[in-house]
């Protein structure tokens, strides 16, 4: 088995968004990420899937060092990324890069593509001939060298995202966190960006933490998939196993809800778990299993006890009372 390059253990990020009460002020917190553990293997694409507000981006921002965790650890090749020091080390910044969802706002509109690509080179690769390096980066992402003189507003959404990928490659990273890299793009453009990412991954042995809400896309790019709901992971499995044998009721609901194009795809959906109820506010997460308010299988215990993550099959773990050890034999 390939080595784990990144290990996230019991990661939490709680935001204080206000206070209750006048004298005994109690903080109102959002548990954006509430005990996430996962590992990323060298050269793999790990898909992190969930609906809006589930905490995916917060995991991403902690992974690249933009946020400090409330608790828990993130290790890169065994080294703790938040070991007391305030700032993340330059070396770790170089190793873990990110591509954001919105290609419009992630590139500085006042800088040319050349300047945008020059900045990370100046910091992380000062010894290199930077102009040559910029031309090389552009050719890696299949953009002509003249593009260095353009400004973001002159590029289409897809091209902006491709420049953001080139910028991430500039530091020669081992890991790229992809936060919904194609969800702002039209589907006819998406394929180009995805195939470029796959080619670059193979060429440079990159590991991707790929965040998305598109399960059909994950089916085609991820080696493993994890589902997040209200700050917690509820199921993880190898992609093939995940789509053949989804176990968590929420995973089944997600899969039942996606609109597909063909009968063959329809046949791959699990037993229909019809979507119902509202996604609870993250300020007011239901006690016990946070999915109980929408779960058709919820029982008394689900409202009181938060289930533990449990490995059902090698590599396939689920957080749900239906799969507790004493029951699964029944």
């Amino acid at each position, binding site marked *: 088995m390939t080595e784990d390059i990144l290990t996230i253990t019991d990661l939490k990020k709680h935001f204080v968004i206000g206070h209750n009460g006048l004298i005994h002020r109690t903080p109102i917190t959002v548990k954006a990420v509430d005990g996430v553990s996962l590992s990323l293997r060298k050269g793999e694409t790990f898909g992190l899937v969930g609906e809006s507000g589930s905490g995916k981006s917060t995991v991403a921002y902690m992974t690249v060092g933009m946020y400090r965790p409330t608790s828990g650890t993130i290790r890169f090749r065994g080294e703790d990324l938040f070991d007391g020091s305030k700032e993340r080390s330059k070396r770790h910044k170089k190793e873990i890069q990110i591509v954001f969802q919105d290609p419009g706002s992630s590139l500085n509109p006042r800088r040319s593509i050349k300047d945008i690509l020059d900045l990370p080179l100046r910091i992380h690769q000062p010894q290199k001939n930077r102009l040559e390096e910029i031309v090389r980066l552009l050719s890696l992402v299949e953009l002509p060298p003249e593009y260095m003189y353009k400004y973001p507003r002159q590029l289409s959404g897809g091209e902006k995202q491709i420049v953001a990928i080139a910028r991430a490659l500039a530091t020669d990273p081992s890991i790229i966190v992809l936060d919904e890299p194609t969800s702002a793009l039209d*589907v*006819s453009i998406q394929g180009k960006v995805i195939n470029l990412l796959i080619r670059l991954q193979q060429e440079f042995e990159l590991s991707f933490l790929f965040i998305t809400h598109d399960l059909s896309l994950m089916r*085609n790019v991820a080696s493993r998939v994890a589902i997040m709901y209200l700050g917690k992971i509820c199921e993880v499995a190898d992609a093939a196993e995940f789509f053949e044998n989804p176990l968590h009721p929420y995973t089944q609901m997600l899969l039942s809800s996606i609109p597909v194009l063909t009968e063959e795809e329809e046949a791959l959906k699990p037993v229909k778990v019809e979507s119902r109820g509202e996604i609870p506010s993250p300020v007011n997460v239901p006690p016990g299993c946070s999915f109980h308010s929408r779960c058709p299988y919820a029982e008394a215990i689900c409202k009181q006890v938060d289930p533990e993550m449990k490995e059902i099959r090698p590599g396939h773990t689920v957080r749900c009372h239906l799969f507790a050890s004493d029951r699964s034999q029944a």
Partner: protein
Amino acid sequence: MTRQPLLEIENLRVGFKVYGGELHVLDGVDFVVNKGEKVGLVGETGCGKTTTMKAILRILPQPPGFIESGVIRFHGRDLMQVKDREMRHIRGQGISMIFQDPTAALNPVFTIGQQLEPVIKYASPENRRLPRKVIRQKAIQALRDVSLADPERLLKAYPVQLSGGMRQRVCIGMALATNPELLIADEPGTSLDVTIQDQVLRLLHQLVEERDSSVILITHTLGIVRQMTDRLYVMYAGNMVETAPTRRIFTNPLHPYTQGLMDAVPKLTGGGVAHGIPGRIPDYLHPPTGCRFHPRCPHAMDICRQKKPSFYTVEEAHQVACFLYDTSSGADSAPARKEALA
């Protein structure tokens, strides 16, 4: 099947005056919706879907927008000729629209009741004479119809107090409260999470089936129209490029753009992600000559750069605007056509 046409659009051309010239957006749109029919309209961002609907409802901002030519008939009557007052009634009871963004469609400073009740009241001269209590009862019923709990309380709530899914339900309730003959839904649920979108779409589907309303469902998610519509239009850069019964288009797409689009959607069956369609949607200041798709089309021929293709009927009810299907033009397109059909 001899269904009556309810809405007919012929050769609609709409542009926008902007700094630097004119954007030639709608390039002769032809479009028909029959009574009781559920029609899907798909196409990528910027292809002109919303502009077409705004022209139908006469809510296109003019300027900068302007209608160059075209006829829009509803029940056989030319909508461009009817008086403003009558148009308000048509918008009240004839045609309703659900807008793309439920947050923007609801005014944040008024309660749901303050927005819903006038819609019902001004829908018709008869409703105008109804006492306030009856209007309120109808408003409560409209919210109940879209499965919203506690409608009395909701009438007093402000939009911010509702979740995205609830706001979209309110918009659907508002659009259906007047029992329109034609409902236009512009990307309903696009801004919602997939499980919530699924709830909203199932509800919408059930309501329009019950009422036998005609529907235009606009989306760029192909899977959604597959579940919900009888017939489909595919739009590209201001033109309708293909129409057929929905099932048929999904099993046998003919226009190179439709084929590219279907291919580009990642499938649950796996097999990798297709490379998509090269290039991008044209600049409407200087749109391509002839077939607007030719710079991106893998089958483009000389004639495609010179002439605009009209609709060719390939099979009953299946029409394609592409020279590959022009059987009269003789030999030059035959090999490419074979390839495209393969």
